[in-house]
């Protein structure tokens, strides 16, 4: 499928970039409204405690304090699931019990919210917090999921008889895994553990809420799923949906954390209590302890192979730690199993997961969801099998990766895949042939490693992938595109502008994105599951197409030709057969609006649809590491990510996603460790002095390869690419370490001490 494209595929500048570069972009935490109060939240210092008594008097009487709310005050509102997963968005009736109150009289983790104040400024709010006197009854607590599963463990939730919040099974089981493993020529197995990685979004969680003159609740929310958040907020606060308006400002980073409700509920509670606008901005420490961070897992994996390297069976048991509330955590296991077990061709597949509640901060969704956790193990085991079968890691993968036409990870037909290209081109770029499998000696040793993965473009058919787009043409031939993805930094406005402009035959800068207001935008599931370019993009394409048809019809009349003979490009409509017959898009639009022939029309197009398809992006990740066998230090010298994400709408934006994913993957693999004190339940890593993400000096030499072949189902052939960039990084590094020094690390993060430990075992 070859396309002649004028706008799609170009490295265009983002419409919001200049505002961000000049400090003029307004984020939720920057908003100021006259009369606005500032909120602050009091959080439990204990991992599990009942509130026996709260003495509000000193705090309430501090001049400048306008409200102090406690669980007693918030009991009038409904409990909820912050992960928005109790909404009817997931096939098969997946629900999460509404288990969390706006404030909670039994604190279930260190940092759980128990009271909040609104004051005329942050200083007074802070001071008020310190004046609230709380009497706690400490309760037994459990940090470790295996301990939490034991009978007699302290019960964390109100709804279940045990701490197993959810048991999840692989959604697409097939064959007979036990039999196939029994018959396999080679079985590799292992237990792999992963960490609770924190998103470290540059902007902390923030929300602003006010009641307007007609009694409507207006909320500036960072939520990636604005329409869903609106619905949930209305539900929590006992209001009809029409009384709630959500505004999405520019968001300072999310990576999945803002897929749940964050600061909104408490902020809204304070606004309702005071009747005044309230802004609630979390401190960095609150980000670490009050919000969802990546679900950590222990995965027991077993993979069976024939002696020719054909993968015949794959089985996983995932044990995930949820935290005090369920949030998005359980879905992490479902998604992990879908992408992990469905990555390679394999006729016998099974997986089970127990998602366990513990007295720890909540676990949820972070770029890749459960995919990074499961591929951490799978890709290392595939390498192990390769070694046992005397094959190299590339060959064994090429043998088993799915080809176009097979059934993809989500159960739909795999329309296109260029994973083989990714593997081959990535291998060449890293220098695989010269570097892999060589005898290594000396104090510092280098090695290369590979990991492959597939992900998704949206969550169809598992979720209701419902998106809408509306395009209206202005009198000057420009267009307003009404959509509501979440602008978390992924350059979605630019991508949608390119898609709309390409279809309409105008320029990307002619598109004005109208967004961020649930009063104006039609329903949008939101930005999630790497779906915005694919699903919102397809909606945009179809809406633009409808508008284009109207433009062509009008132009045909004005030029007196049939519309089939017309083409639009570069803001002009012209006849294919007679180039002299041409008219500008602007003229047509103007004429339609100011039409004195009695045929007024504001040309527009709308698309309301549910994406029924899911085109998985696929990638091969290559790491070159240097291991110092004296110090155990692992340095990633070079990293290559080769990605098939269909047609790159904007290659610069795609590179940005993959390069950013690399940083997060290196952090996941080597530097980030979220530590909870086993004896006190206190989070010890609650800011960047103790929690270390890679800085500029920690990045390797990088190369990004974009295959750029279009997918039949994506808008102009694009597939999702928001999440994949992080998924294969850590296992590629682990496999490179093995190539360098012949030892495997199975527990994240890889530390010098772990490397030395396995090296010494080897000796």
């Amino acid at each position, binding site marked *: 499928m070859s396309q002649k494209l004028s706008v799609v595929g170009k490295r265009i*500048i983002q419409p919001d970039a200049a505002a961000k570069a000049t400090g003029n972009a307004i984020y939720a935490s920057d908003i100021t409204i006259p009369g606005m109060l500032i909120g602050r939240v009091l959080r439990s210092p204990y991992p599990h405690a009942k509130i026996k008594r709260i003495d509000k008097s000193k705090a309430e009487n501090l001049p400048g304090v306008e409200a102090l709310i406690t669980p007693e005050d918030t009991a009038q509102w409904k409990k909820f699931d912050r992960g928005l997963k109790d909404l009817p968005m997931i096939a098969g009736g997946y629900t999460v019990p509404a288990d969390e109150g706006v404030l909670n009289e039994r604190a279930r983790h260190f940092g759980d919210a128990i009271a909040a104040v609104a004051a005329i400024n942050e200083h007074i709010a802070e001071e008020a917090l310190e004046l609230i006197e709380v009497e706690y009854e400490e309760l037994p607590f459990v940090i470790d999921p295996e301990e939490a599963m034991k009978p007699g463990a302290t019960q964390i939730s109100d709804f279940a008889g045990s701490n197993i919040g959810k048991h999840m099974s692989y959604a697409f089981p097939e064959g007979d895994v036990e039999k196939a493993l029994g018959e396999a020529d080679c079985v590799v197995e292992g237990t792999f553990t992963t960490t609770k990685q924190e998103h470290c979004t540059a902007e902390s969680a923030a929300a602003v809420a006010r009641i307007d003159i007609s009694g409507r609740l207006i909320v500036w929310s960072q939520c990636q799923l604005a329409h869903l958040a609106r619905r949930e907020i209305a539900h929590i606060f006992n209001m009809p949906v029409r009384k709630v308006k959500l505004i999405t400002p520019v968001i300072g980073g999310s990576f999945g954390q803002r897929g749940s409700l964050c600061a909104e509920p408490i902020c809204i509670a304070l606004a309702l209590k005071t009747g005044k606008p309230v802004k609630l901005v979390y401190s960095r420490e609150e980000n670490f302890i009050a919000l969802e961070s990546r679900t950590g897992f222990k995965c027991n994996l077993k993979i069976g192979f024939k002696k020719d390297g054909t993968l015949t069976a794959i089985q996983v048991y995932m044990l995930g730690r949820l935290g005090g509330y369920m949030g998005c955590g359980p879905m992490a296991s479902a998604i992990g199993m879908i992408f992990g077990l469905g990555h390679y061709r394999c006729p016998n597949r099974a997986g089970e997961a127990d998602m366990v509640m513990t007295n720890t901060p909540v676990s949820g969704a972070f770029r890749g969801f459960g995919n990074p956790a499961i591929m951490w193990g799978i890709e290392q085991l595939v390498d192990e099998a390769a070694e046992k079968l005397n094959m190299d890691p590339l060959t064994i993968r090429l043998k088993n990766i799915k080809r176009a036409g097979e059934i993809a990870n989500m159960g739909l037909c795999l329309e296109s895949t260029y994973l083989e290209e990714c593997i081959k081109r990535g291998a060449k770029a890293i220098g695989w042939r010269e570097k892999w499998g060589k005898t290594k000696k000396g104090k510092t040793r280098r090695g290369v490693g590979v990991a492959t993965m597939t992900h998704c473009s949206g969550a169809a058919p598992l979720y209701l992938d419902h998106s809408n787009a509306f395009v209206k043409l202005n009198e000057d031939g420009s267009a307003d595109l009404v959509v509501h993805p979440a602008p978390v*930094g992924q350059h979605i406005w630019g991508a949608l502008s390119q898609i709309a402009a390409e279809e309409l035959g105008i320029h990307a800068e002619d598109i004005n994105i109208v967004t961020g207001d649930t009063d104006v935008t039609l329903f949008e599931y939101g930005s999630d599951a790497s779906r915005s370019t694919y699903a919102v993009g397809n909606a945009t394409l179809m809406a633009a197409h409808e508008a284009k048809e109207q433009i062509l019809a009008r132009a045909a009349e004005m030029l007196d030709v049939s519309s089939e003979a017309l083409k639009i490009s570069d803001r002009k409509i012209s006849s294919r057969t007679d180039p002299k017959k041409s008219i500008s898009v602007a003229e047509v639009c103007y004429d339609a609006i100011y039409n004195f022939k009695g045929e007024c029309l504001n040309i527009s197009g709308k698309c309301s649809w549910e994406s029924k398809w899911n085109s998985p992006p696929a990638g091969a990740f290559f790491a070159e590491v240097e291991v110092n066998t004296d110090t155990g230090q692992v340095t990633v010298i070079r990293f290559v990510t080769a990605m098939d994400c269909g047609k790159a709408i904007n290659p610069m*934006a795609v590179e*940005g996603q993959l390069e950013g994913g690399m940083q997060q993957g290196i952090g996941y693999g080597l530097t980030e460790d979220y530590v909870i004190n086993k004896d006190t339940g206190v989070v010890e890593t609650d800011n960047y*002095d103790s929690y270390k993400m890679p800085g500029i000096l920690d990045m390797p030499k990088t190369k990004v390869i974009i295959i750029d072949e279009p997918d039949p189902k994506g808008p102009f052939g694009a597939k999702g690419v928001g999440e994949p960039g992080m998924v294969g990084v850590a296992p590629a590094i682990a496999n490179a370490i093995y190539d360098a020094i012949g030892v495997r690390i199975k527990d994240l993060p890889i530390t010098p001490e772990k490397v030395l430990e396995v090296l010494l075992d080897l000796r």
Partner: protein
Amino acid sequence: MKQIATFIVNEKHYELAIEPHMLLVEVLRDELGLTGTKHSCGIGSCGACTVLIDGRPTLACLTLALTVRGKDIRTIEGLAQGTTLHPIQKTFVEHGAIQCGYCTPGMVLSAKALLDKNLNPTEQEVKHALSGNLCRCTGYIKIIDAVLAAAEAMSKEAHP
């Protein structure tokens, strides 16, 4: 007790009444409405609150406002001339070095301090100059590209 002090921010003089315990980041954002300087980690690790004081990158979240009264304070808002971007802002925009944009003001100012002293930095020098600015979105790659491109552009302008 509030004190009256004069602050010189982006070459403009402001007379403000502020408490001694107020941080520069608060004064800039809340008193002057200059929200380009961001408040992110609060403990000096991320650089999002970077401003230039007498030309030197400084953390506004760890600076008492009164201590810098009368000094030359530059925030991100002081770089562009009207709607004309500073060369560094221009290359950040053009090279895709901005994703969520929250770290951008601090990055740009740290880069500016480097280029104001050295218009021909090596890649290592660029990295060291920005080593106190954390970014979670970009992987830093395009940021480095943008700074080197700005150096080239500014160099050409200085020696045409």
